[in-house]
């Protein structure tokens, strides 16, 4: 029921913004055009009949060197939830590898503040209009964004070597 409502909502208001609808293992996700994400979120939050008020999570994927890369290297996933109808669905946007940027939704949800900061820190996606887009988890000295596929797992910037005879090199 909620699924039909959602489809109707997108058909009526954002027919151009939806690239495709995807259903995998029972979860609906809508692939949207990156520039429309703020408007869609705003409309969803304001829509009383949908009653989707809960932003569960924001996360990101990196499709480097994968077939999926053709639609854009990065993918930002917005995980939305409706408490009254206990329904969960996903909004996804694809961004290209060079300077991935998407509009921030901090104005709509306070919780998006830290979630977007984490995505920025770990994946290097810029959120336009974010009030304080700085590192949140990784060390200040660390260059790069660890969750990108081209970031090596055992990268190490040798700092703490006072008792090692031959300090390690940067492992790449």
């Amino acid at each position: 029921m909620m699924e039909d409502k959602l489809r109707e909502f997108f058909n009526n208001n954002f027919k151009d913004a939806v690239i495709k609808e995807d259903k995998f293992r029972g979860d609906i996700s809508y692939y949207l055009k990156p520039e429309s994400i703020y408007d869609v979120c705003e409309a969803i939050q304001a829509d009383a009949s949908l009653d989707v008020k809960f932003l569960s999570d924001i996360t990101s994927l990196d499709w480097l060197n994968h077939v999926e890369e053709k639609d854009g290297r990065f993918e930002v996933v917005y995980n939305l939830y409706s408490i009254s109808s206990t329904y969960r669905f996903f909004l996804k946007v694809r961004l290209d590898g060079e300077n991935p940027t998407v509009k921030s939704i901090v104005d709509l949800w306070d919780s998006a503040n830290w979630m977007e900061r984490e995505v920025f820190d770990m994946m290097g996606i810029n959120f336009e209009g974010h009030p304080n887009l700085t590192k949140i988890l990784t060390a200040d000295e660390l260059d790069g964004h660890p969750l990108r596929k081209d970031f090596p797992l055992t990268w190490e910037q040798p700092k703490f070597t006072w008792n090692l005879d031959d300090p390690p090199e940067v492992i790449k």
Partner: protein
Amino acid sequence: MSNTSKTVTLNMGPQHPSTHGVLRVILELDGETVVKAEPVLGYLHTGIEKTMESKLYYKVLPCTDRMDYLAPMSNNLGFCLAVEKLMEIDIPDKVQWVRVCLAELTRINSHLVWLGTHALDLGAMSMLLYTFRDRESIMDMYEAVGGQRMMTTYIRIGGLAMDIPKDFEKDIRNVIKVINNGLNDYETLLTNNEIFINRTKGVGVLTADEAINLSLSGPMLRGSGIKHDLRKANPYSSYEKFDFEVPVGENGDAYDRYLIRVEEIRQSIRIMEQTLDGMPEGPYRAHVPGIVMPPKEDVLYKMESMIFHFKLITEGFKAPVGSVYQGIESGKGEMGFFISGDGTNKPHRVRVRPPSFINLAALPKMCEGNMFSDVVCAIGSIDIVLGEVDR
């Protein structure tokens, strides 16, 4: 701190006895009033999500224990459910009931540590001793099923690591007895304790709208008066078969959250008793050759099982392209696993929806404009585990 400025900047942590680990908060004080509170995270950043991407699906599991180390079995459960959803594995009844029982035991474990440390922060030193005394019985139970005190990795993809021990029911009933006795002690000490009430009532208040806007979950959300529990809303692992109440607060302050957590321990005991009363018989692991590890007894005596075991250990199984999300209600809130497969034997991306990380984002709102001495109480009432906040 300069003489001309009106406010004082105070650094709290990362080494501070009541930040529950290595949280750092930068406070701006105007006299005794907090003007601004800014949490600084990352002092325990472990790169767990990146590490998970480099491991086979089976070998990711030990990493999940080490995130929310007060509730290891909840993490195992969340990850296994997500992988089972991705691979479409059906789980035998008995496994589901044992999982429910252990997940509730884990919730009690998590709440007990919270109760002890939170009360310690507020000056009730003996609470820590009592809760850790009773927690030992849970640790013994963990050891009985999984062989380890904390990081059991007992819940595996498609089932359990091994069959439940012979005395499982008797032992769990013993634990329930210990916890029930302890719970009466705690409530006698705290619930009507004037000092405790004065320190917690009206502290860290969040209204229902604020709680939803901040995406809070677990006791934080329920404390603000919203009756939402994933065990009831989107039942997983056959939670719909059990009868329990979801406690809800009214004022959204630290005292309500305390009452909710204590009541949740009672409800967990109720669920555990129900699982024991109706424990079904059956295998302890689903029979899905090629994806679920065959039972160890078969590996020793049967040819096919040994081959599957060898293949699974060396190359694992291949997951389809696509992403699934599975949220569970852990002791702290909605613990979610977002797993994206890319057609290979390693997960393309494992995203953990960390309940304490998202709940902690409410700290500035809870502190700002309130007294300085209530900051500790506000941090305590969120129930954070830094291992999960920073991952």
